[in-house]
């Protein structure tokens, strides 16, 4: 299954520390030789300040060799830096943690700065010390501490680049400490920050590859790609994550980003769509029709990326080849099971995928052999029957479908929609739309103010719908 493993593809888009869990997962599964994974872990740890961890990895890897002396020196250096930075940061922290100060602080950052300077003699450099210490803590693995310091720093700092960087750092810390609610919050603020300001959003301080590109649109694309990858941690661990993932990833800007720079995210998108099939209630139309949208994208990006999960959707909804879909489903099952993010959702995925198959199957067929359907679902006959009965009971088609046990078939009798119904359907939205039209005519003024914002969004990616048109230029 190594061919479908995305770890190598996505590692470049993560921070060093975020890769540890990925590698740990790999070492548990047997996709790659353990030694190789361990070597990778060691290489990874070497570049951080987590000296003890690196040493232990080294000992695991080369049991018979002496631990290089450089580690000791590095450790000492790290400890002394830590102390120095801590002292610097402590001064500010003392001030901030004073309840009096906490009360006095307001929204306006400039004013806060002024206030702190006047009353407590705290300068900008001292505030930056918070950042430095937070960053340093992060490098040796004290993520919760780092998150704390970075939070305080961000409240006070006015430096745009450092703030951005602290956003990324805090997100990484939250992810690594496993506080998904906080991380989700952080993710959303970060996303807003990226979307609102085009330039310089690359997580310079916390990331290894710092693209020195000057093009703001390109920078934004980079940041979005990173965000997409980082958010996988959050979305596949937070209870509401899948729905939120669909919401986020299916917005045009992020969909474009996926298509342009990281089509492999489609796997997660497709899985999330399958997983959230049953979620009803307050979801938006975007989520409910996600599958249709995703199938469209999968079809379009087929030449760039495909794996069993996307193939499953394609076979099911484009080719309507149930046999092929079934094959792909069994492959997708292992892929999902082995994936770091998706592993936990294997059963849920399988369940939902079966629902999708049977739903499509029932909609197309009038009379279905139960045995055949069970085959399609990778179930044996008894299980299949039980499953189908549940299906009929749960879904809306209960009224239309009947099981005929004698012939061992399901009869589905779906009366065609009466004409009046279609007419009602067609005209339903009209009143609302007209209303909206009227409303829009009233506020053209506001509209114009909004326009600049709209235009700012750089269209770094494909407008999928457009077909190139021929120009009449020859004359």
């Amino acid at each position: 299954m190594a061919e479908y493993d995305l770890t190598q593809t996505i590692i470049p888009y993560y921070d060093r520390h975020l890769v540890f869990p990925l590698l740990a997962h790999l070492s548990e599964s047997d996709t790659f030789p353990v030694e190789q994974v361990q070597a990778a872990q060691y290489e990874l740890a070497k570049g951080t300040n987590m000296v003890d961890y690196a040493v232990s990895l080294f000992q695991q890897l080369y049991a018979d060799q002496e631990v290089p002396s450089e580690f000791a020196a590095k450790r000492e250096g790290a400890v002394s830096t830590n102390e120095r930075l801590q002292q610097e940061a402590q001064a500010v922290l003392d001030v901030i943690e004073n309840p009096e100060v906490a009360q006095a602080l307001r929204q306006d950052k400039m004013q806060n700065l002024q206030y702190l300077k006047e009353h407590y003699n705290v300068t900008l450099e001292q505030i930056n010390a918070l950042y430095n210490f937070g960053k340093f803590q992060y490098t040796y693995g004290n993520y919760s501490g780092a998150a704390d310091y970075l939070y305080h720093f961000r409240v006070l700092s006015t430096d745009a680049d450092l703030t951005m960087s602290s956003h990324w750092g805090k997100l990484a810390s939250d992810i690594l400490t496993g506080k998904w609610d906080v991380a989700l919050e952080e993710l959303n603020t970060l996303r807003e920050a990226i979307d609102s300001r085009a330039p310089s959003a690359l997580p310079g301080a916390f990331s290894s590859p710092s693209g020195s590109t000057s093009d703001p649109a390109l920078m934004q694309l980079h940041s979005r790609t990173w965000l997409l990858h980082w958010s996988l941690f959050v979305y596949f661990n937070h209870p509401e994550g899948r729905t939120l993932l669909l919401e986020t990833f299916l917005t045009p800007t992020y969909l474009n980003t996926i298509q342009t720079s990281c089509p492999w995210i489609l796997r997660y998108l497709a899985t999330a769509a399958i997983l959230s099939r049953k979620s009803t209630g307050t979801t938006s139309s975007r989520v409910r029709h996600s599958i249709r949208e995703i199938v469209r994208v999968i079809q379009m990006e087929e030449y760039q990326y495909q794996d069993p999960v996307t193939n499953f959707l394609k076979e099911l909804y484009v080719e309507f080849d149930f046999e092929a879909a079934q094959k792909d489903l069994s492959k997708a099952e292992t892929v999902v099971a082995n994936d770091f993010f998706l592993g936990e959702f294997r059963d849920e995925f399988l369940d939902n995928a079966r629902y999708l198959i049977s739903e499509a199957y029932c909609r197309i067929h009038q009379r279905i052999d139960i045995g055949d359907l069970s085959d399609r679902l990778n179930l044996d006959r008894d299980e299949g029957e039980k499953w189908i009965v549940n299906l009929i009971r749960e879904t809306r088609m209960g009224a239309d479908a009947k099981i005929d046990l004698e012939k061992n078939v399901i009869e589905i009798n779906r009366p065609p929609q009466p004409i009046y119904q279609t007419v009602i359907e067609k005209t339903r939205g009209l009143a609302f739309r007209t209303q909206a039209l009227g409303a829009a005519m009233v506020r053209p003024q506001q509209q114009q103010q909004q326009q600049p914002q709209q235009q700012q969004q750089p269209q770094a990616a494909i407008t999928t719908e457009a077909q190139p048109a021929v120009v009449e230029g020859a004359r």
Partner: protein
Amino acid sequence: MSRFFRQAGDSDSDSESSSEEELMSSDDEGTKPTTTAKPAMSRFLRTAGDSSSSDSDSDSEDESDSDDDDEAQGSKKKSRFIRTSDSEDDDSDEDVKRVVKSAQAKRLDEMEASGKLMDNALKINDWVAISSEFDKLIRMVQRQQNVAEPIPPFFIRTLTGLETSLNSALAKEKEAKKKMNASNARALTAMKQKVKKVTKEYENDVKQFQTDPEKFESDYLALVSTEAQPQKVKKVKKAAGDSEEEDDDFTTVGKGGKAMQFTAEGIYKNLQLVQEARGKKNTDRTEQIRILEKLLEVAVTNYQRIRVLLALVSCRFDNNSSISAHVPIDLWLAAQKEVDQLIAIIAENPAYSIQEITEDYDELAERSPETEKDGIVRIRGSIISFVDRMDDEFTKSLQNIDPHGTEYVDRLKDEKGLYCTICRSQALYEKLGQDEPLGRVVMRRLEHIYSKPDAVVSALEAAVAAADFTPSIALDSSNDITSLIHSLCTFLYRSHNSLLRTRAMLCHIYHYALHNKFHTARDMLLMSHLQESIHSADVATQILYNRTVVQLGLSAFRCGLIKESQQTLQDIFGTQRVKELLAQGVHQQRYQVLSPEQEKAERQRQLPFHMHINTELLEAAFLVSSMLVEIPLLASIDSEEQKRKTISKSFRRLMDFADRQVFTGPPESTRDHIMQASKALQDGEWEKCRDLIQDIKIWSLMPECASVKEMLAKRIQEEGLRTYLFTYAPHYSTLSLSLLSRTFSLSLRQVTSIVSKMIWNEELSASLDQAASVVVFHRIELSRSQQLSQTLADKVNALVEQNEKALDQKLGQATSWQSRGEGGQGDKREQTGERRRGGERSRGARGGARGGRGARFAQGLGNQMSGAQRNR
């Protein structure tokens, strides 16, 4: 030649007769001047003639000119034209110089002129000319004697020289038989006689001369000087070149029958002369080129060579003044070589640099790195403009040559050289680090290869690799053309010139499309957002854009993406002016006449034939994909109302036309084939349809035509099934899948898949019965009122959509107000969104382009729109 000179000589004496009547009235009658030579008279003579009529001053001026010149040119030249005697040269020069009396000087000059002519003729072994000149000389000398003047030493010297050369010529003649033609040989023998005779006549003088040339000359001088009184008229030289030409050795005969001599020292003067004459009305351009060529031969230093080459190349291109005609091919080839030479010189000598803007410098002075301040000689000029011009001329010549002749093919072979030159200049600019011209040159290079098949590009690149001076971007060892194009394009993407970036992008896309990488090409095109800005680009870029889009459509077709292909090609076929839009032909407008200027401009834009995209193939691809899209659609709709929603108007029109035909014969043209195939497909005869489509001959022009045909056959099967289902669904209540599978030779699985797809998309109201493996149709007949109410609902929908569109336009920014309005709930919102998207799509794809086109025409292109619309 000889005739010309004789005339010159004769008319010479004629002019004398008018100007110096008082001195030599009697001689005139003796020589009997031929006045017929007047019109053909040369410049030199004209000066003489003119001056004679106006004032005699100019005469003396002439003389002084010649004197000056002799002085200036020094001994070197003299020794050139009189080889036999060397030591006397200087003295004889003096001699000539002292001659002051105008008549006498004139005669002397004449003698010398004929002497020179003889000398020249001697060089080429033209004894006929020598003989006639000799006669003339003798005559003149006799005249000299008549006026009791001493025989000039010049004559004697010539005589002796002639004798020796005669002897040697005879000796040579004996050795190399058959070398001379008859008249020449005759003249040689006649000369021999004559010389013998004359030598006898002047035996004394000759002897005197031979024994002591110096004394002879000084005697002569003494004789002459007694009569002479020096003239002091020293006017400013009229034109330095003129005087030079008069007395120089005659490598070229100028317009005026004047001899011109080119030496290293005189180069700058000559250059200046040529440059001054440039662009003037009566300048003989061929002549100028010849002068410059000679100059190039004698040029010694690099500086001189660069200067001459710069002048020469531009002169070659000047040769052709009209815009429409192209530079003659031989001139072009020569220019190409010279540009190569120029580049080589510059590349070898980094101390010289050619720049478009330099400080002023003395055109006439020799310069070298040592004389310059910073050690670099900057010369005004521009290699990039030469390269541009060469490329343009090449294109122009291809435009003008009949593409079906061998000449065209021959001309195409020159492309290799041109390509090498372009690459060489690229290398040069890389070395010099000049980005701006480098970008231009890389663009030229890219334009030569982007549309060519791999084999051709490899050949071109091989030629470049063989050259000594290669650019950094070259074909790598793996022969991967795509990566070459890619590196060229990425280079251009970095340039600051947005036009270059755009064009590079289009070339890149075109290349991908040509290599069947449809997806990559499409993504690039969409990502570049070119379709939004292309309307404001220049015409050439728009043409390139059209070509790219069309190629993209073809590549979609080859990849089997019928729908994409149809959509892409539809726009260009919708206009019915395919050829014009691709710059492959001038479209005949039915309702208006093009002004000559427009027509000319259009002709200039035409692409050379070898770059054409075959329009017939294009049409075949478009019509076939239209057929595959349109026929099932036609079958699926049942009411007249819906019929108006056409996808491809041009296809539908052809269909209607074919339907009206009473008799249909066997298909001949591509269109016939496709129309009949469409009919067959409508009737469910997919095999006939397939055969008809595969019979189309033009497919052979498509690369991988076998696989394309196979793909088409498969598509026809599938679409045939769909059409069949649509058409006959009302007549069946059930249909067995196996029957369908047999009828259309598709596997059961494929049939199921297709039918399922139709059911899922609600195109077909049916369902599958798995147990019996049949399709069960649920058809409901609509009553009239139901039908009407549905239509009404559709229309209301359309109305609201129109309103939204109108508002969108008014507000400028599309859809933003609606996305706000989406705050509502549930189904309504979703529907709105859906509709809106649909609306946008159609607007984006079609409406935008059409509307934009109209506006564009209205602005820039006058009244053609009405005609075009009516056509449509």
